[in-house]
């Protein structure tokens, strides 16, 4: 189930709100666990068992690690940690990467091993990373062990973040799982945040997606430069508003149930280098890799060669985490190399450039990155990349002019929406009317009603409501 659907808005969410708030506090984690299982099982009834197995393994692993540590048995704790992390990773590896590995073997050895053709269990990359972070944190002593399987299950399955993150680390919501204080203020914050996310996803991302889809199917052999860049820009906006909108909705829903998840995006398209981009994009994933891979490998305190090695490992993994295909690996390596170059080669020079140029540099490398990300068929991909740099044999044509002017309003909204302007304008206006309850309520209410109404209009009529992050 996805948030931006009639089913979620007019069946699931109302039901969950009633159940959750009708139950006494003691039972609320149980309610969250049960409804989250239903949320996951909707349309994917079989894989819910896989998720339950994953939860049981990591929960037992956490208990074992904790018990060994208490008994002073460091070796036992290490083994328990290793076994449960390996188990989680094997499930992820098997269900997500088995066919990719088989295909590669077939290609390399010219053999013909039949593929398993398993459907990818939705959200497995997200929840596996959460369970691993939990066990490691218990081992490191930075998280308390959770003895209650219901609370732990509620943490892993919690529907707001289940299928597309943010990747919530257990230690950040341990206290909230044990005792949290829902309040009207927090609920209202959640409403505003949820509406922001819904609008980003349904009104902005989907419309950018329509533009991208109309261009990606064009014959790349005579695709004008301008059209190719409009296309990749549309995809750049689609993926940002899609994913960050989803994170906004997750954070907003979290608030409605008294949870505070950490931020996942911070205006990534304002960045002035690839390094900065990754501090602002999918923050919970970057944090995860830093804490559980990069730093344990020695981070940047291992000399130049070690630094290069560690960085490349992290980025290869980041790439492959996004999908079992070569283009994702390539995309990861691309960023690994860019970050290395910025750190070791031209970072200093870059900083001396005017801000505008640094921004242009960043957006160009990010857009080329999204181009790599979007093509899992190399053949079609090369033609498109060539077209971006003139391979289509013309700079612009009638079609380019048409796409520009007929999407002008959309493109301006997308550009402004990626900046801090909307947030600053909103907080500026709200600050002015802070003393007036009526004005505040009218403004916030109007925003809610307008975004809600337009989104429902698009959802009812649109057949177009894909969700990019389903693959992960």
């Amino acid at each position, binding site marked *: 189930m996805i948030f931006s659907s009639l089913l979620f808005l*007019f069946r699931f969410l109302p039901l969950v709100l009633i159940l959750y708030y009708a139950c006494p506090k003691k039972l609320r984690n149980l309610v969250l666990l049960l409804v989250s299982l239903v949320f996951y099982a909707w349309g994917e009834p079989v894989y819910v068992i896989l998720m339950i197995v994953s939860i049981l393994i990591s929960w037992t692993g956490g208990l074992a690690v904790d018990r060994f540590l208490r008994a002073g048995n460091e070796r036992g704790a290490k083994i328990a940690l290793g076994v449960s992390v390996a188990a989680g990773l094997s499930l992820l590896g098997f269900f997500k990467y088995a066919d990719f590995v088989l295909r590669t073997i077939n290609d390399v050895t010219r053999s013909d091993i039949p593929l398993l053709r398993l459907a990818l269990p939705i959200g497995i990359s997200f929840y596996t990373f959460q369970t691993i972070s939990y066990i490691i944190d218990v081992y490191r002593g930075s998280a308390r062990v959770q003895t209650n399987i219901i609370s732990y299950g509620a943490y892993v399955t919690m529907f707001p973040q289940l299928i597309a993150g943010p990747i919530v680390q257990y230690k950040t919501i341990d206290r909230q799982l044990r005792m949290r204080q829902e309040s009207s203020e927090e609920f209202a914050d959640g409403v505003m945040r949820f509406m922001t996310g819904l609008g980003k996803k349904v009104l902005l991302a989907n419309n950018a997606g329509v533009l991208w889809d109309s261009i990606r199917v064009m014959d790349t052999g005579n695709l004008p430069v301008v059209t190719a860049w409009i296309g990749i820009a549309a995809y750049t906006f689609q993926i940002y508003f899609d994913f960050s909108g989803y994170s906004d909705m997750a954070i907003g829903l979290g608030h409605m149930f008294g949870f505070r998840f950490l931020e996942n995006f911070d205006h990534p398209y304002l960045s002035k280098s690839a390094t900065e981009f990754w501090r602002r994009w999918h923050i919970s994933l970057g944090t995860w890799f830093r804490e559980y891979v990069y730093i344990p490998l020695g981070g940047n305190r291992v000399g130049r060669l070690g630094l290069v090695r560690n960085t490349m490992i992290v980025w290869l993994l980041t790439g492959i985490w996004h999908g079992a295909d070569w283009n994702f690996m390539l995309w990861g390596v691309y960023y690994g190399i860019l970050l290395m170059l910025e750190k070791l080669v031209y970072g200093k020079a870059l900083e001396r450039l005017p801000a505008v140029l640094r921004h242009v540099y960043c957006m160009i490398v990010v857009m080329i990155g999204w181009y790599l990300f979007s093509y899992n068929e190399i053949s079609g991909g090369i033609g498109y990349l060539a077209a971006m740099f003139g391979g289509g044999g013309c700079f612009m044509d009638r079609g380019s002019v048409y796409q520009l002017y007929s999407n002008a309003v959309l493109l301006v909204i997308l550009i402004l929406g990626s900046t801090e302007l909307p947030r600053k304008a909103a907080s500026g206006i709200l600050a002015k009317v802070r003393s007036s309850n009526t004005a505040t309520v009218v403004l*916030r209410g109007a925003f809610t009603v307008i975004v809600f109404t337009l989104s429902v209009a698009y959802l009812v009529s649109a057949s177009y409501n894909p969700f990019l992050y389903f693959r992960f």
Partner: protein
Amino acid sequence: MNKHQSVYVNTIFLLLIFGFTVATLIRPQKERSETENRVLQQRPELTWDSLLAGEFADDYEEYLSDQFILRDSWITLKTAAERAALKQETNDVYFGKDGYLIEKHTGAFTSGTAGQNIQRLAGFMQMMSEKYDAQHLSCILVPNAVDVLSDKLPAFADPYNEEEYLQNVQASLPEGVWVDASQVLKEQHARGGTDPVYDQLYYRTDHHWKTGSAYLVFRKWLEQKQIGVSSEEQYQVTQVTDSFEGTIASRLGIQGEPDSIERFDPAVPFDCYLIYNQSDDIRNSIYRDSCLDTKDKYADFYGGNYGLVEAKMPDAATGRRLLIIKDSYAHCFAPFTYGYFDEVDMLDPRYYNDSIAQLMESKDYTDVLFLFNAAGFAEESAIARLLA
């Protein structure tokens, strides 16, 4: 936000969510949508099998969307939002000039089916040409509005050039079979006349061509095949409605500029009766005027789509029998042929489930005409049934 404000904001949100939830729950189901002209998904039955296969989930979501309260108004709102954002198209439809809503047919001509259908039609025509010479075998693909009314498109719009596809079809057919509807319509359009009967070639709000266009192409066919001659004086033209809002307007949920539908009746009437689907449903009029009171006014011709409509003209004595294999573009075309044949059968491969070859064998036609609209032909999987 202070507590006081938050209570109000929450109330607004909960009213929206719960209000629509309750409304969708208590509203009775509708069987079909008049505006969209299709059957709506009904609430699916919950069974273990459907649940585990994920079928229930899919059907339920479709049900929720199809049966959503005020469905038509939401679609209207979406189209209005698109126009407010200065979009020149929505749902693959251009907002054309002079009130024209013009389907874009994105991808229709470049799909695998489009290519296969050329082969299929060529195979069928090849087979036919063993029995029929070019004088008695014809193929008409009517170009769509997007191709003919290019001056009505938004500035710089750059849709697929149907001519390319039509030329590929023509090149694959036996010599002399092709009748160039595209040329007739484009020449007429280039003349820039303002006669509402002959110069408005397509409906503004519907995907069909107008009766006057069909007449022009009919005359070209008649001459090219040397079946006879026809002049405008042979017909009495009546406007049967001026408030036709077609399928494209419906799809966008908007009130377009209403269209008129014309009917060409022979000035000298002759006897004719129609047999529907080889049943006892026998009628003596082509036109079903009850349809003019419904949304689907184009169904005034023949009452809509049927697998087989046999027309017999007992007094014609021409010795010729025509088979038209067609889609709904033929509905305003076929009546013109009735004055030139003893019998004209219209067969719609999308709805006719028996063997086409067997029918042809039993009826011993003297002439065969294939007539589809270009995009409909390119997209139609039932074309495969020609060779079955």
